[in-house]
C-alpha cells in the first residue's frame, strides 16, 4: 500500500457499494416473488411467472389463478414494497437527522400522529370529501395523515432543540408525550366510533396490507417515489451532521435546509404509508440498525440498502401475517413488533456484551 492511498480506495468502495445494493435488491426481489407465490391457494411459481408476463405484454390470462395473482397478491406486494421501503428509509433519515439511533417515526410519535389525523378524517372528515368534485375527496385521507405526521415532526424538532443542538432526552420525552396525547385522541375516537369504525381502528393501530388496491398504490406511490428521489441528496449532509450541526455548517452543509427537507420528506412518506397501511411499528426503527451493523453508517450506502431491506422485511412479515393463521389474518404490526422487538433486544444484549468484552 502506498502512503497516498489510506485504506480502501474510492473505486474499491464503489465496488463494495454496488455489491451491497445488489444483494439487498436480490433479497427484496426474492421476497416479492415469494409473496406472489405463497398463499392459501397454491399456485406454482411457473404459473405465477406466466401470469405476470401475460399481464406485462397485455395478453391477460383469464381464470381464478390470474385473479388471485394480479388482483390480490400483486397489489399487496407492491404496497408492501412501497410502504416497507419508505418507512425504513424514514427511520434512517430521522436517526441521522436527530443524531440518535432511538429516533424513529414510530417511537417519537410521527406515525401515531399521522394515524390519529387519518382516523380523524375517517370519522369526522370523510363527509367533507364528498363535497369535493371528481374523486379528489379520496386525497383527504393521505393528506390528513401527511399533515398529522408533519405537525408531529415539526413540533418535535422545535421542542428538542437547545442552543443549536438536538437533545436526545428532550426528543424522547417530547415523543413520548406526543404519543400519549395521540393515544388519548384515539381513545376519544374509539368512544364515539361505531362498530364498523372500531374494526377499522385495529387496522390503524396495528397496520395491514389487506385491502391493497391500485388506488392505494396510486396514493402512496408519488410520496414514496419523491422521498426516495430526495433522500440520496441528503446523504452527505446527514453524514456531516453526525459531527454536530456546527461542524456540518463548517463543512459546507446548509443545515437548516437539510433539516427542513428531511422533516417534510419523512412526514410525507410516513403520512402516505400510514394512510394506506396503518401504523406498522418497528420497521423504521430496526431496519436501519441492522443495516448499519452490516455495512456501516455512511448514508450514501445506508439509505438505498435500508430502503431495500425495509421492503424485504415488510413483504416477508406480510407473508407470515396472512399464512400463519390462514384463512384469518394476523395484523401486520403484530408480526413486525413480535419478531422485531425480540431481535432488537438480542442486538442490544450482544452489543452490550461486546462492549464489556472490549
Amino acid at each position: 500500500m502506498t502512503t497516498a492511498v489510506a485504506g480502501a480506495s474510492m473505486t474499491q468502495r464503489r465496488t463494495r457499494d454496488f455489491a451491497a445494493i445488489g444483494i439487498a435488491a436480490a433479497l427484496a426481489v426474492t421476497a416479492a416473488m415469494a409473496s406472489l407465490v405463497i398463499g392459501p391457494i397454491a399456485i406454482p411459481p411457473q404459473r405465477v411467472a406466466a401470469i405476470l408476463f401475460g399481464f406485462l405484454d397485455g395478453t391477460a390470462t383469464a381464470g381464478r389463478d390470474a385473479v388471485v395473482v394480479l388482483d390480490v397478491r400483486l397489489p399487496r406486494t407492491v404496497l408492501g414494497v412501497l410502504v416497507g421501503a419508505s418507512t425504513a428509509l424514514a427511520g434512517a433519515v430521522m436517526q441521522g437527522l436527530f443524531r440518535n439511533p432511538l429516533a424513529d417515526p414510530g417511537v417519537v410519535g410521527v406515525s401515531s400522529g399521522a394515524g390519529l389525523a387519518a382516523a380523524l378524517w375517517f370519522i369526522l372528515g370523510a363527509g367533507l370529501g364528498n363535497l369535493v368534485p371528481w374523486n379528489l375527496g379520496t386525497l383527504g385521507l393521505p393528506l390528513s395523515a401527511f399533515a398529522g405526521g408533519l405537525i408531529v415532526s415539526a413540533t418535535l424538532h422545535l421542542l428538542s432543540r437547545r442552543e443549536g443542538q438536538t437533545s436526545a432526552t428532550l426528543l424522547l420525552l417530547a415523543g413520548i408525550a406526543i404519543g400519549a396525547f395521540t393515544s388519548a385522541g384515539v381513545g376519544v375516537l374509539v368512544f364515539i366510533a361505531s362498530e364498523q369504525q372500531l374494526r377499522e381502528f385495529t387496522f390503524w393501530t396495528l397496520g395491514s396490507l389487506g385491502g391493497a388496491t391500485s388506488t392505494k398504490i396510486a396514493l402512496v406511490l408519488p410520496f414514496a417515489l419523491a422521498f426516495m428521489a430526495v433522500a440520496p441528496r441528503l446523504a452527505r449532509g446527514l453524514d456531516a451532521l453526525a459531527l454536530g450541526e456546527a461542524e456540518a455548517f463548517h463543512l459546507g452543509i446548509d443545515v437548516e435546509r437539510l433539516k427542513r427537507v428531511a422533516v417534510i420528506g419523512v412526514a410525507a412518506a410516513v403520512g402516505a404509508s400510514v394512510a394506506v397501511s396503518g401504523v406498522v411499528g418497528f420497521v423504521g426503527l430496526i431496519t436501519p440498525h441492522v443495516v448499519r451493523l452490516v455495512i456501516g453508517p455512511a448514508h450514501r450506502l445506508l439509505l438505498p440498502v435500508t430502503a431495500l431491506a425495509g421492503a424485504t422485511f415488510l413483504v416477508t412479515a406480510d407473508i407470515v401475517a396472512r399464512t400463519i393463521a390462514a384463512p384469518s389474518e394476523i395484523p401486520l404490526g403484530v408480526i413486525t413488533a413480535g419478531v422485531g422487538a425480540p431481535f432488537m433486544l438480542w442486538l442490544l444484549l450482544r452489543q452490550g456484551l461486546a462492549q464489556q468484552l472490549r
Partner: protein
Amino acid sequence: MLEARGISVQLSGREVLTDADLTIAPGRIVVLIGPNGAGKSTLLRAAAGALKPVRGTVTIDGKNISGWSAAMLAARRAVLAQSVTLTMAYTAGEIVRLGVPVSMRNHEVDTIVGEALAAVEMAHAAERLISALSGGEQQRVHAARVLAQIAAHRGPTQYLLLDEPTTHLDPAQQRTVLQLARRVAASGAGVLAVLHDVNVAAAIADEIVVLSNGRVVERGSPAALTPELLGRVYGVPFHIAESAMMPNLA
C-alpha cells in the same frame, strides 16, 4: 486577507463581543487569548461566518461574507473545534472524506484523504472506527479532515480556524496539532487559533490578540505580552518563571 471590522455579537440578548477587530494575513498565525468568557470563541465563530454579528463586517479578500452560503464559506475556511462527539460508527477515513466536496473525482479524493491522514500520522487507521481510537487519535483524525478540506479547495488563500484545538491533548499530541498549524501557515494559508496556554500561544503566534470582557485589550507580537498585562487580564499575578518547561514546537 480575512478581516473582521468592528464586530459586535449578542447571544441571548447579551452583548458578548464589542467592536472587535481582527486581521489574518496569508501565511500568518494569529492567536486569541483571554479568560473564559472573554469572547475568544465568539470572535472565531463570527470570523468563520457561523455567527451573525449585530454590528461590523467580516470580509475575505475584501468581500463581505455575510451573504455567503455554507458551501462558499467552506471553500475558503476550515474550522477545527476542541472536541467532536460522534454517535455512529464511522471510520477515520469516512470522517476525513467529509472534508472533500462530492463533486471531486475518485482518485483525487483518495490522494487528498491519504495525504491528510499521513500528515497527522494516522494513515494506518483509515479503516478503523473512530470510537476505537483514543481521544488524541480522534482529534488527529478531525485535524486530517480539516487538512483535507483545505487541500480540496486549493487555489485561493485558505483560512484555518482552530477553536481550542489542544484541550484534552497530552504534550505530544498538542505538539502534533500545533506543528500542523505551522505547516498550514507555511503553505500560505492564514491561521487563527484560540488557545488557553499563554506560553504555547507565545511560542507559535506571529500575532497575539488579547480579549477581556468581550473587547480586544491588546494586540501585537508575542513580545508584547508582559506579566503586568496578563495579570490585569486574568486577574491573577503572573511572573516570568526561569525553569518553565513546554514541548518543543520547532
